Every structure is written in C-alpha cells, then in structure tokens.
C-alpha cells in the first residue's frame, strides 16, 4: 500500500512539474472558467435587472449553475487530459511498463482533478463575489459538499470513459475529450429544470447523477434546504456509472493490448 502511494505521488509530481514548467497550462486552468463566468455573470445580472421581482433570484441560479457545470467539465477533463498528455509526449509506454498499476494511475488523475477543481472553485467564487455580489458559499452553505462530491464523482466516471476511448482509438478519439461533456449538458438540467424538457428527454435526464445535483442547487436557492433523496439518487447513479466506466476502461485496455495499439500510442 505504501508503495502504491509513492507511485501515485510520482504521477502527481509529474502533473505538478508539468504546470510549473508550462505557463500556458497553468494559465489554461483558469482561463476558460473565468471567461465563461464573466459572460454568464453579466448576462445574469442583466436578466435580473429586467425582472421586477428580485425574489426570482435568476442571477443566483444562473451563476451557481455555471460554476457547477464547470466543476463537472473540469473534473472529466482532468482525468482524460492527464492520460492524453502522456500520449502526446510519447511517454505513455514508459508509464505502462513501469510498476504503476492502472488503478493507481487513474487514482492519481482523480486527485489531480480534485486539486484543479478546488482552485477553480475558489477563484470563481471570489470573482462572483467581487463582480456580482454573489456569495456561493453563503448561498449554498454546507450543502455545497454533497453537491460537489456527486459532480466530482460523475466527472471521474466520464473521464474514465473518455480515457478508455482514447486508449483504444488513439488520436482519432481525442476530440471526444472535449465533446463528451457537451453530450450530457443538455440533459443534465443545468440552467433549466427537468420539467422544461420533452418527456422522453426527462427520462434520460433522470438517469444522470448531474441532473439531481443541478435540481438540488435550485431547491437550495428556493427553499434553503437540499432534499436528501436527490443526494442519494445521484450517489447511487454515480456508483453505477463509475463501475460501468471502470469495466469499459478494462475492456478497451485489453482490446488495445490485443490489437497492438497500446505499445504504439502516440506514434500514429
């Protein structure tokens, strides 16, 4: 176990050095989320001003939705970009032949994602507070923790799924890293409640853990409390998706090993 921790630490050190060595990468952690928050923040403030009734709290709903969407997106990205980074630098075979186990590798990418997201959340909430006088922490209170846990978890599952595709199909699947989150975005009820979706899509939405998180955020905004059945539903679904993603990863890894793709990752 101690040996595993050292190896996981090795991979984390790799990501740490990567960001220390590369200004664009350090910058990139913050750039997109901040730009997105600026646009959405001002849009929300404008919408709010159009509504006479401040009790609608439209700005609060949109800004918190945007920040949480970013958490899901970045959590998935951290896992798959970490994997693809070693494909780009032709280092992946060095990693695959080292004593590092697959689960240790994935665990390191999860921890990496967690750190990345903590930084982004802190920065975005600071910006929201300064520019829009919106305090995410006082708005959501301690409910933030269960909400965040479920999003992070779902992001990991999506990240493992996309990494599996990249390991199996190489460069041609890389675009999916940025695409997959947008596949779940419309059916996760992020900026609007599930009820506005057509009925068939409502069913799809109800099968995604992210939906319960975003519905939960709106409930907290309205009623100042989080219905716990939302939390448990999301958690249960997350376990299922995570298990499926892990099985899929194992299957794709074996398939890549069979087809001779594993040793040639990054060379095509």
């Amino acid at each position, binding site marked *: 176990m101690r040996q595993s921790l050292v190896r996981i630490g090795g991979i984390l050190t790799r990501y740490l050095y*990567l960001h220390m060595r590369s200004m664009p990468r350090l910058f990139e952690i913050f750039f997109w989320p901040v730009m997105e928050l600026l646009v959405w923040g001002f849009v929300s403030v404008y919408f709010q001003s159009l509504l006479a009734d401040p009790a609608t709290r439209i700005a609060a709903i949109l800004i918190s939705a945007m920040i949480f969407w970013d958490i899901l997106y970045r959590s998935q990205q951290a896992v798959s970009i970490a994997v693809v980074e070693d494909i780009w630098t*032709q280092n992946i075979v060095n990693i695959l032949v080292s004593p590092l186990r697959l689960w240790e590798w994935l665990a390191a990418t999860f921890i990496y994602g967690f750190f990345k997201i903590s930084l982004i959340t802190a920065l975005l909430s600071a910006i929201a507070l300064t520019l829009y006088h919106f305090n995410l922490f006082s708005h959501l209170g301690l409910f933030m923790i269960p909400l965040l846990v479920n999003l992070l978890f779902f992001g990991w599952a999506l990240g493992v799924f996309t990494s599996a595709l990249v390991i199996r199909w190489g460069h041609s699947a890389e675009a999916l890293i940025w695409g997959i989150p947008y596949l779940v975005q419309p059916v996760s009820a992020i900026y609007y409640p599930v009820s506005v979706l057509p009925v068939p899509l409502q069913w799809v939405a109800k099968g995604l853990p992210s939906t319960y998180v975003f519905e939960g955020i709106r409930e907290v905004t309205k009623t100042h409390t989080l219905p716990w059945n939302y939390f448990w539903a999301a958690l249960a679904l997350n376990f299922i998706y995570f298990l499926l993603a892990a099985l899929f990863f194992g299957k794709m890894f074996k398939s890549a090993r069979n087809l001779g793709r594993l040793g040639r990752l990054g060379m095509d």
Partner: protein
Amino acid sequence: MESLIVTQNLSKNYGGVRALEDLSLEVRRGEIVGLLGPNGAGKTTAIHILLGLLTPSSGSASVFGLSPLTHRHKIAPRLNFSSAYVQLPSNLKVLENLKIFSKLYNIPDAPKKIASLLELMDMTSLASRITGALSAGEKTRLNLCKCLLNDPELLLLDEPTASLDPEMADNVRKLLKKIQKERNIGILYTSHNMPEIEELCSRIYFIHEGRMIAQGSPEEIMKAFQSKTLEQVFIKIVRSGDFVVKEPGL
C-alpha cells in the same frame, strides 16, 4: 545460467497480418542477445509481448518464469525498457523526469541513485535542462538513466541507438557492455544495424517476416551463410526469399 526470458512458438497476427510466427527464444542472465531483422520483421512485436503491452495470438512467453500478461506487476520492478520511439516528457527537466520515475519504481534513496546515474552517463551538467532541448544522443542517455534506476536484472532495448550518429551509438554500446559486465544483467537488443549487433551480442536471433531464419553466435551465423559479415548475411536472407531455417551449432 538462469533463463530470464523464454518464449515458445510465440505468434502474433494483427488481423490478416502475420507479424510473428513460432518464435522460440531464450535470454539468460549475463548475456546480450540480439534480435535482428529488417524493418517489419516483428522485433517490436516480440518486445511488446514480453513487456505485457501486447497479447500474443498463440504460443507462450515468460519473463523471470512469469507470464507478462498476468504477472506484469511482479515483472515490471525487475526489468526496464527503452526505445528510440519512446520519450520522457519533453516539457520537464531531466532531473524532474528521473525523480518521477524513481517514484514510479519505488527507488529508495532516489537522489543518490539519480546522481550516480547522471554521473555514469556523463549527464550531471544537464540535470536542469529541459528534456525536449536535449540532443538525440543526450535523450538516449537519459532514457538509459531511466532504464537503470531500478537496477534491472533484464533490459529490453528496442533500437535504442536508432537516432544516434555513429560516434554516439558507439559510446552507448560501450556503456551497455560495461553495465552488462559489471551488473551481470541480461539484455535483449533489437536492431537492423549489423555491425552494432556483431560487436555487442554473444548470441543472435535473426528474424524475417516474423519467422526465425537463423540463430547462434555472430561467427556461427556468418559461417552458416558463408558470409564475411552479418551485413552480407542480412542481404542474402532478405533477397533470397527462401527461408531455410538454419540452426548452426545446435
């Protein structure tokens, strides 16, 4: 001498392509064995099977008496691998890369180990260079540093000198010979550079289109093909198209 690698009738098909056919070879402790053949002969395929990166279609492979597919975690700490086509992350410093891999290999007292390897490879002054800025020769030496971090009993080297000029390739060969003598490790070395193999290897497996054409010491093989150099053997084999398996000395 103890066997580090044993394969029996190892075959690999990629869809319709027969990359390897009935390859049986052995590498023992303390010997440098050459896996020789033209481009596309199946050398990398064989190495990848031994590393557990590739599932063979049939036949068996064992490393330290274990299957690379099912016991990779037991095998990996005891061997290492380098290839001209695999690099350490180019955007990190030399020392950073070695630190990372010393963690992945659970090396105790890593700073000391890294310092001594940099010294051995004559790279101490390059420790804080960005890896991507190294010359091809320096990169190869860095890859070899990484290879020796875990004091491997076995090295799998896939065309490690492919991107080097003759002088640098010569340095690397001398170094490998020295390491092999001092540490009594086994090395499986692939190349299509005949003089290199002649100089370095005590035994050779010559493969072409996935099949074993000849095996033995360089001298035995040259004799069997009535050639003065391995290069002549190579050209004879590739041009003849008639692959009689010759097993001189066996």
